[in-house]
């Protein structure tokens, strides 16, 4: 039933019976499109509230779609977003909200936020869904008392820790970077991944940010492998330049039915196939190896592509959750762009760098170098690639894969042009 440690029972996992549902198209495939994108300025401190930034991004996304706030009748959110549906509704004045959805698992949720938005419009429960994420987490951001209202939530940890985090927070694993470090350490050990491989990710994504005037780190210029290796060790083996930044900013998108999208102003960006997957999470670390996450995660890519007209080699660019560089290599493997343990070798020779690399990753600069909007800024970049408006445009891009965190229960979808 379950795989165990790498190399032991991986075969058992791969040999389990196929489920019938795996082989048929999902009912919402190719039925919804992203019709509007909007975002605030990104910065390490905007001195604005989470709601203030959310409202701006939402208005901009609705305007980009050529709609009015009153046209929006669905909402899809991260459940970590403190600003609830009725608060947003009362602030920005949407239409009557007939469909809403929240998705758990933080950075693992953002593909699911789009998938549930697609469900709302594809099933006819609503016409236009607004989906968003707003965060005040920059070094100079507004600090509120809530865990997600500014500053680092792990610095606001309570005296008593409930839930599964009590099995590692009191022992010194206090923040995600330290959990990822334990995962990355074993990943290096098992597969010969090196810090050069980590730097391939950081360098390629920074180069994308340099071309993107809206990115926070791009203005600091490119980084070299030497600079990466010399950057401060945060949690061995993860260095400062392996880490995403913390920023203020908000991103919103409008999801509409494909029929409605055809009469709107933007080129079609169709949500083609989608997959969600439960797997061990970094905040559930004792289960990461017991349940052999490395084998389980392959399900995500398998489900995403077996329902698709595209194969991994057909994908023009990919938006991955780059909270930490090792997790990008894992994500490339999970989605089937290369085999298990081959993410490091895959990253060589500028493969991840656009527009000419084998598979450009996070052509806006991602969470590492554009801004950390919990992955949600990856969504408008996928749309820009399909529209042909990215600052690192892959010529003629027609299929872009988007995946949420490889370190969490997660999801992915493929966006395609008309």
């Amino acid at each position: 039933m379950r795989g165990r440690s790498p190399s032991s029972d991986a075969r058992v996992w791969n040999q389990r019976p196929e489920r019938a549902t795996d082989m048929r198209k999902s009912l919402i495939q190719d039925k919804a499109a992203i019709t509007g994108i909007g975002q605030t300025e990104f910065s390490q401190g905007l001195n604005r509230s989470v709601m203030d930034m959310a409202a701006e991004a939402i208005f901009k996304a609705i305007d980009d779609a050529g709609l009015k706030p009153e046209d929006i009748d669905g909402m899809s959110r991260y459940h970590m977003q403190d600003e609830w549906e009725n608060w947003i509704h009362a602030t920005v004045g949407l239409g009557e909200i007939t469909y809403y959805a929240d998705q758990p698992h933080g950075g693992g949720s953002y593909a699911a936020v789009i998938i549930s938005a697609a469900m709302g419009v594809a099933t006819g429960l609503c016409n236009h869904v607004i989906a968003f994420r707003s965060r005040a987490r920059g070094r100079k951001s507004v600090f509120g008392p809530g865990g997600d209202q500014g500053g680092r939530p792990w610095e606001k940890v309570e005296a008593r820790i409930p839930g599964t985090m009590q099995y590692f927070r009191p022992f010194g694993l206090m923040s995600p970077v330290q959990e990822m470090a334990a995962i990355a350490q074993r990943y290096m050990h098992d597969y010969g991944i090196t810090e050069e491989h980590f730097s391939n990710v950081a360098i390629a994504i920074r180069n994308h940010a340099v071309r993107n005037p809206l990115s926070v780190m791009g203005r600091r210029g490119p980084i070299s492998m030497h600079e990466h290796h010399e950057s401060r060790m945060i949690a061995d083996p993860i260095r400062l330049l392996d880490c995403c930044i913390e920023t203020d900013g908000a991103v919103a998108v409008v999801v509409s039915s494909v029929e409605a999208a055809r009469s709107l102003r933007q080129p079609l960006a169709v949500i083609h196939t989608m997959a969600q997957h439960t797997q061990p999470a970094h905040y559930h670390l004792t289960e990461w190896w017991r349940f052999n996450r490395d084998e389980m995660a392959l399900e995500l890519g398998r489900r995403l592509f077996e329902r698709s007209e595209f194969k991994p080699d057909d994908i023009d660019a990919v938006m991955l959750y780059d909270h930490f560089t090792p997790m990008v290599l894992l994500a490339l493997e999970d989605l089937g762009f290369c085999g298990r343990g081959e993410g490091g070798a895959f990253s060589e020779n500028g493969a991840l760098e656009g527009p000419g690399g084998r598979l450009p990753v996070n052509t806006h600069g991602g969470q590492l170098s554009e801004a950390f909007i919990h992955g949600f800024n990856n969504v408008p970049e996928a749309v820009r690639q399909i529209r042909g408006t990215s600052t690192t445009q892959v010529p003629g891009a027609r299929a872009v894969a988007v995946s949420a965190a490889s370190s969490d229960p997660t999801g992915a979808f493929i966006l395609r042009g008309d």
Partner: protein
Amino acid sequence: MTQTGKPETRFSPYAGLPLPQPSWDNYKFWEYCKAHELRLQKCSGCGELRYYPRPACPECHSMEFEWTKVSGKGTVYSYTIAHHPVLPFFADKVPLPVGVIKLDEGEVYMVGRLMDVDPGDVKIGMPVQVMFEDVAEDITLPQWRRADD
């Protein structure tokens, strides 16, 4: 270093360390730690050990189990050396080695500090032995030290 007293939280060297919040599902585990015993749930259906504590077996789905004393021996399966302390409590403890320990009994992994181990000496596969650190009136944390010392 093992603390064997019962420090008052306010004046304790552990003031500022976030502590576990015992629950209905796990209070037995923490009670056994308090008695300096490492006991884990052993499934009565399939015999699998599990950690962290939970009410059912994910392997065979049995809800019957007993708290079984384990050897407390294991190896470092993975680890990190935390250089950034995150909380003030850890500021004088970095660089801090924290291990993911695979118990000798099988597919059971526990996170704990590697005590009295030089950060440069930590290696995957290193044998370790559990030790108990009394950090509050009601909480003792299972930590790890080198087994070959």
